[in-house]
C-alpha cells in the first residue's frame, strides 16, 4: 500500500484467473496439500498425547529403510495405481468412477472362481484369471455405465452403491459356499494354486509391472491416437464434440467399461499375487484411495504412478502405526483431509496475484478513498471493467 501514497493512479493487488499454471506449481501445490494434511494429523496426535515426530520417524524408517518395508510399499502401490488409473481415465471425460472398490472385489471374485473351479497349466490359468478379473470389473460397472451413457443417470451414486453390494456378495461366498473348510479360523476361500511368479524369495511378483504397462499404454493412447484425441475433446467441450460428430455416448460407455476392467484386473493381481485367497477384506479401501491418487495426479496416467507410490508410502506408514493407535479408519480420515486440501490447492493454481492500477472516477486527490473502496468491494464489477 506504500506505493499508493502520493500516486495519482493507485494500484491494488488482485487475483486474476489463469489457465496456464506452470507444471512445478501443480506439483508443489499437491505436495503442500499432503504435507499440510500430515501436519494437521501430527498436531492432532500431539494434542491427544502421542508423539507424532517419533511415530512418523518410526513409520518412515520401517517403510523406506528396510527391504521388507520397500517391498510392502511396492505391493500396496500396485492396486493403488490401478484404481488410480481407473479413476483418472474417467476424469478425462468428467466421469467419476467411485466404484473401483466394488469392481476390484468383483475382479477378484471372478478370478477366484476361475482359479478354484478350472484346472490347467499355470500360465494359461493366469491369463484366464486375468481376463476373468477384467470381465468381473466390466460386469460391475456395466449397468452404471449404460445408465450414465444413455440416460444420464448420476454415475457417482450408482457406482458407489455397488461397492456395498460387492463387499456383501464377496463376503457371502468367502464365508459361505466357497469357505475353506479345512482351516476353521479363516473366513476366506481355499488357497488358489495359480500364483504370479515371484522374484526369488521376495514378496514381489511380476504383477507389479502390470500397472506400469497399463499407465504407459493409456498415456500413449491418450496422446497419440484418434481415440485419445476424441476423448480429450469430449472432456474439454462436450457440445463441440457432439457437433463435430464424435460418438460421445459410445465413448462414455467405452471409457467406463475400460475403467471397470482396470479396477477388476487389480483385484486379480491381489488374488494371484499376494492374498491367494478371496475374503471380504482383500481391499484396504484401495478403491477409495484410488480417487485421491487420481486427484493428486490431476488425471494424468504417468502422474498416477508417482502419486500412487506416495499414497502407498502413506498407507504402509499407517499400517506400521496400527499398533501405536492409528487404525484403518484413521487412515481413511487422513485421506479425506488430503483430498479436501488437494481440491482447495487446485483452486490456487487457477489464480495469479497481480498488481493492477485502477483508474478513479473521482478527483485525483480522492484516489486514496477510491482505493479503499476498491479494497472493500473486492471484485467490484464496474471498477474491474475499467481496469481491463
Amino acid at each position: 500500500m506504500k506505493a499508493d501514497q502520493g500516486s495519482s493512479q493507485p494500484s491494488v493487488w488482485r487475483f486474476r484467473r489463469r489457465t496456464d499454471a506452470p507444471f512445478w506449481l501443480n506439483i508443489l501445490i499437491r505436495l503442500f496439500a499432503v504435507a499440510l494434511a500430515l501436519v494437521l494429523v501430527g498436531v492432532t496426535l500431539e494434542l491427544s498425547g502421542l508423539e507424532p515426530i517419533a511415530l512418523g520417524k518410526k513409520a518412515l524408517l520401517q517403510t523406506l529403510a528396510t527391504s521388507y518395508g520397500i517391498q510392502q510399499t511396492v505391493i500396496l502401490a500396485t492396486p493403488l495405481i490401478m484404481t488410480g488409473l481407473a479413476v483418472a481415465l474417467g476424469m478425462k471425460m468428467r466421469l467419476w468412477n467411485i466404484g473401483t472398490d466394488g469392481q476390484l472385489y468383483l475382479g477378484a471374485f471372478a478370478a477366484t472362481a476361475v482359479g478354484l473351479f478350472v484346472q490347467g497349466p499355470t500360465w494359461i490359468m493366469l491369463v484366464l484369471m486375468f481376463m476373468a478379473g477384467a470381465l468381473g470389473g466390466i460386469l460391475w460397472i456395466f449397468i452404471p455405465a449404460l445408465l450414465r451413457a444413455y440416460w444420464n443417470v448420476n454415475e457417482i451414486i450408482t457406482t458407489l452403491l455397488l461397492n456395498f453390494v460387492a463387499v456383501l456378495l464377496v463376503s457371502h461366498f468367502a464365508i459361505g459356499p466357497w469357505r475353506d473348510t479345512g482351516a476353521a479360523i479363516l473366513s476366506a476361500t481355499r488357497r488358489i494354486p495359480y500364483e504370479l511368479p515371484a522374484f526369488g524369495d521376495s514378496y514381489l511378483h511380476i504383477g507389479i509391472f502390470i500397472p506400469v504397462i497399463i499407465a504407459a499404454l493409456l498415456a500413449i493412447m491418450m496422446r497419440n491416437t484418434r481415440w485419445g484425441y476424441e476423448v480429450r475433446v469430449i472432456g474439454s467441450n462436450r457440445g463441440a464434440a457432439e457437433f463435430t460428430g464424435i460418438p460421445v455416448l459410445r465413448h462414455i460407455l467405452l471409457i467406463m467399461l475400460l475403467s471397470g476392467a482396470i479396477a477388476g484386473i487389480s483385484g486379480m493381481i491381489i488374488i494371484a499375487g499376494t492374498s491367494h485367497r478371496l475374503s471380504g477384506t482383500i481391499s484396504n479401501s484401495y478403491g477409495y484411495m484410488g480417487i485421491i491418487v487420481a486427484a493428486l495426479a490431476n488425471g494424468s496416467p504417468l502422474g498416477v504412478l508417482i502419486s500412487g507410490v506416495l499414497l502407498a508410502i502413506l498407507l504402509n506408514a499407517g499400517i506400521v502405526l496400527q499398533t501405536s493407535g492409528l487404525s484403518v479408519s484413521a487412515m481413511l480420515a487422513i485421506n479425506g483431509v488430503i483430498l479436501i486440501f488437494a481440491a482447495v490447492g487446485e483452486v490456487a493454481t487457477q489464480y495469479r496475484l497481480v498488481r493492477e492500477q485502477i483508474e478513479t472516477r473521482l478527483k485525483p486527490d480522492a484516489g486514496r478513498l477510491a482505493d479503499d473502496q476498491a479494497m472493500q468491494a473486492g471484485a467490484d464489477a464496474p471498477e474491474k471493467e475499467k481496469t481491463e
Partner: protein
Amino acid sequence: MTNVLSGVLAAAIASGTVIALAALGELLAERSGVQNLGLEGVMAMGALTAIAAVRWYPDPYFGLLAAILVGLLLGVIYALATVVFRANQVLCGLGLAFFGTGLSGRLGAPLSGFPSPATFQPVRIPLLADIPIIGNAVFNQPLLVYGAFFVLPPLISFVIHQTRHGMQVRAVGENPGAADACGISIMKIRLLYTCIGCILAAIGGAYITLAFTPSWIEGITAGRGWIAIALVIFGAWRPLPVVLGALLFGAVTSLGFVAQIQGWGIPSSFLAMMPYLGTILLMAIPILFRSRALRKLSTSPAALGIPYIREGL
C-alpha cells in the same frame, strides 16, 4: 397379519426417517447449487456425537444439540472449501465423506457395542394413533419422525416455492450470474444452505443412534448418506417426492427384516443388498417410464456443482 403389516410400516418409517432428514438437507443445498457428496461422513459424525453426548449427559435432546453443532461445524468446513474457495465439489464431498466415516470409526472405537443410555421416546398422538393398522405405526413415533415427514416437507416446499427468499435460493441454483446481477449474495445463500444441509444430515445420524438402532458400531450409517443423495435425484429436487422415496426405501429395508423373521430362506447378505440395489432401481425407473413433459420437470438445478465465479474475475 395386521401386526406384521403394522410392524413393516413402523420399521419403514423408522429407517425412512434417517434418509428423509438427510435427503431434505441435501435437497436444500442442491437447490442453492451446492452438491454435497459428504453426507455419509456428516451423518456418521452426527451419529457418533449424539451417542457420545448422551453418555456424558443422558438427555436425547442434548445429544441432538451436540450432533447439530458438529453438523454445523462440518458444514462450515465444507462450505469454506467449496463456496468460499470454490474448490471442486466432487473431490471435497468425497473428502468429507472419507473424513467423517474414518474419524467416527476411529473416535467411536471405545464406544463400540454399548447401548445408548438415553433414547427418543415415542410421542403418541391421541385419536390418530387409534386408527387400525397404520395408526400405531405412524402416530406413535418420536417427535423427529413427525418433523421429518409432516413438518419439514411442507415447510421446505412452501419456503422454496412460495416465498421471495425461496425464489432467490432457486435463482442462485439455476442462474447465479443473473441472481448476482439482481444483488443477491450468492455466497451468503450457498453458505447458509450448505450448513443447513449438513445439520439435517447430522440430525439424521443422531436419529440412528438415539432411536433407530440405539448403539454405536463402526459403519452404522451403512451408506444411508449416499442413498439420500440418490433420493434427491429420484424425487426431482422436490420435498414431497423425496420424502415418499425415503418411505419407499424404508419399506424395502424393512422387507428384509420381515424376510429374515419369516424365514423365507434368502441369505442375509442378499437381503442386506436390497436397499442399495433398490436405490439404483429407483434412480433408473423415472428415466425409463416418465413422459417427456415430466422429464423436463426432473432436471437438476442448472448450476448444480458448478462454483460461481463472477465474470471477468
